[in-house]
């Protein structure tokens, strides 16, 4: 059987914030299409740094260096225009941050407005409904679409931010601790949602919550001090980690 072509592949990816130190060291990993991959590891091990490399967020800060290769559908994104990459690789941040000057409706469409893409009224309405439905927010907000996004609860705001990212129909969705600022109910909501979304989009999620990783991800990465220590099936990693450091972390003896 021919192996499935990965949608995203890190090849000896290195990221350094300063000349002397590397925050991410020679990470190589291939991410399969339509999977959820959890990235775990102690605080400061480079999870966010790795994630942000995948949509060229580091390009915003001229002092940060990214080396190696990151392939998206076989093409090295480090040689591509950041704008093109970011439209294909969406991102959801730790703290929900809908645009405060825009309505809920406009927030969902912000990817288009920001890029100067104009849609017809019917396309706009359809996109808003589709995206809000896919984050299970439609029924809650359909009557208040003109209200500011910041009026929503934290969990709703985060779902709005996911909807905003989905509107661009990305291939990959990067999520950096998307539920760490939310209560258990809102978290459960978003976890459920990610299982659904998996059909449309490949998800990489950074999480400190091992229960969450177990519940939602099929693959897991364990990082330590900037290195990718272990990468494989989530079930296997939790039941039978191959590295001592992974074991120590998962059993609560580290970080």
């Amino acid at each position, binding site marked *: 059987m021919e192996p499935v072509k990965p949608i995203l592949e890190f090849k000896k990816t290195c990221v350094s914030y300063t000349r002397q130190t590397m925050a991410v060291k020679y990470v190589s990993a291939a991410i399969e299409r339509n999977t959820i991959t959890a990235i775990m590891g102690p605080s400061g091990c480079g999870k966010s740094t790795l994630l942000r490399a995948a949509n060229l967020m580091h390009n915003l800060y001229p002092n940060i260096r990214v080396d190696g290769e990151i392939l998206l559908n076989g093409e090295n994104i480090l040689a591509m225009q950041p704008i093109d990459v*970011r439209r294909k690789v*969406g991102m959801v*941040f730790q703290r929900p*941050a809908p*645009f405060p000057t825009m309505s809920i409706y406009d927030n969902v469409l*912000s990817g288009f407005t*920001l*890029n100067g893409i104009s849609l017809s009224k019917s396309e706009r309405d359809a996109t808003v409904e589709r995206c809000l439905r896919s984050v299970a927010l439609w029924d809650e907000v359909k009557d208040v679409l003109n209200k500011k996004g910041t009026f929503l609860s934290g969990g709703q705001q985060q779902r709005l931010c996911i909807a*905003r990212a989905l509107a661009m129909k990305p291939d990959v969705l990067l999520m950096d601790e998307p539920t760490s600022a939310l209560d258990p109910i809102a978290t459960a909501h978003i976890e459920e949602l990610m299982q659904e979304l998996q059909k449309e989009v490949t998800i990489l999620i950074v999480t400190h919550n091992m229960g969450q990783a177990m519940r939602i991800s099929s693959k897991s990465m364990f990082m330590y001090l900037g290195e990718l220590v272990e990468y494989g099936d989530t079930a296997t990693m939790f039941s039978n980690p191959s590295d001592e450091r992974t074991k120590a972390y998962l059993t609560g003896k580290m970080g």
Partner: protein
Amino acid sequence: MNDKLYRGFLFIAALVVPVVCGGVVYALVTDAYEAFEYFGFFRFLTSSEWSYTDGAEQYGALPFITGTLMTTLLALVFCIPFSLPVALFVGEYFRDTQVAAVLGTVTDLLAGIPSIIYGLWGFYTLRPVIMALDISEQGSGILTASLVLAIMITPYASSLSAEFIKMVPNDLKEGAYSLGATHAEVVRKVVFPVAGSGIFSSYVLAIGRALGETMTVTMLIGNTNNIPESITSTGNSMASVIANQFGEASDLRLSSLIAIGLVLFLITALINMVGKIMIKRARIS
């Protein structure tokens, strides 16, 4: 005992401020009363006659209210195209860089120059240029005063706006970038709208400064007592007419000048209050 004395001293010191303020207002009102009574409050504000021929004295504030509004608004028009880019430069594009720090220092320096110096510069450098360009014959006038006023309020407006531009959360900007926006789009569609109310209030406070600026305007506006016909005409602002004429004025004319001062005081206080309230709101949100 000692503590009581200390508190008493603080109390008295704190009391001085409102007392002085009240005193100023009281003096303005009593001294302006004669003019308001003689001409009528509303007619005083809307009359454009300003003649001090004995026996046929006629004083109206309209030419100076017009002069003040024209110089202030024109100064704002000239100021925005400079201060906004400077604010963006310092607050966004070159934020936290050496260049921005240098520019910030120079801006602060400009803000600290006494207005007489600006007046001199305007009179001896800008006025000849205006004459050479054939914009106006005498060189001085509304336009000349407004240009120098604009330079004077630019540092203030730009450093205040830059502060609001800097306050736009990085979360929001990264959110916009993550959707594929370019820097220019992020500035236009996220930074400006979010910092908008703060930037607006910066300009309100800048207007507050321009309204009362006296020395520079007096030196450059041409000091004529009729309503300016165009921006190249000469005129007088509320502040400059007082500065020009208070020395030689007495009785009804003096009272009229003080009445203009009272109106200026009220307008400036109002604008500053509105600006401060808006700034506070913008900072909180």
